[in-house]
């Protein structure tokens, strides 16, 4: 990863910092889980799988205003869980399965982080095995 660009705008900066932080600062993962936390939105998500319902058709079964349903769809859209497209006079909502994959990215990331950590733990212990002496009081070189 390059270390060149000096004046970093926040989004780019976020991508460059420790991977972990970058992914977590990426609000998308949070947005996905936040969006999934609501029953109506989960229902919309399930019904929009077919990919050809307009917002008004989606809204019909719910005992709430059209505007309220629109708001739910907007939350799902921001989370990357649905896409909207215009079809004539209709605004068609389609579930985006890719969006759900984001949830997985967070765990994948942590997996990599912990693989690294455990490898370094092993490295530390192996290092100690080499000389006959112990490093009970670390006279070893300071980290980093």
């Amino acid at each position, binding site marked *: 990863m390059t270390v060149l660009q000096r004046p970093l705008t926040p989004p780019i900066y976020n991508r460059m910092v420790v991977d972990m*932080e970058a992914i*977590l600062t990426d609000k998308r993962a*949070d947005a996905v889980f936040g969006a999934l*936390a609501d029953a109506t939105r989960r229902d919309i998500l399930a019904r929009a799988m077919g990919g050809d319902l307009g917002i008004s058709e989606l809204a019909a079964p719910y005992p709430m205003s059209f505007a309220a349903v629109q708001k739910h769809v907007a939350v799902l859209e921001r989370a990357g869980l649905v896409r909207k497209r215009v079809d004539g006079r209709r605004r068609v909502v389609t579930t985006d399965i890719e969006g759900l994959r984001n949830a997985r990215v967070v765990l994948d990331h942590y997996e990599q*982080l912990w693989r*690294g950590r455990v490898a*370094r733990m092993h490295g*530390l*212990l*192996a290092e100690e095995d080499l000389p006959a002496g112990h490093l009970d009081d670390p006279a070893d070189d300071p980290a980093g």
Partner: protein
Amino acid sequence: MSTVDITKDLPNATLVVSSVFSASPERVWRLWADPRQLERWWGPDPYPATVVDHDLRPGGHVAYHMTGPEGDQHKGYWRVIEVEPPRRLVFEDGFADDSGAPNDDLPVSRAEVTIEAVDDTRTRMTLTSVYDTTAALEVVLGMGMEEGIRTAFEQILGLLAEG
């Protein structure tokens, strides 16, 4: 050989990391309990960690920062929940803002470390880490759904599982 077993449980947002070390439980414990040891493995590669506060008691606080190649600092903290040397450590792991105060905008994870002797020379360390907010996915899995919808979700979950 250092092997690591990793199990990911997406619906429960849980990661289980397990590895066997050629060392005593006490020695493995020290990787966590000695801040100088901790800072040698906690930070990912170009971001070494510096532990500035390390109070490993229930309710205690561990504060650290990781320093990037450009001198950029990223602060984090643990809130210590359970401590049982040399066998068990439970803490919350979160990000901190520049002042070192917990940053509640970023997810907190809960880590449970268990350390147990396998035999006279080997010790297994298991870390179970549960990540925030993902509970929502569990709800998705657990909710009752009519068959068609369930199938659709199962397809999604299959996709998720195959990575």
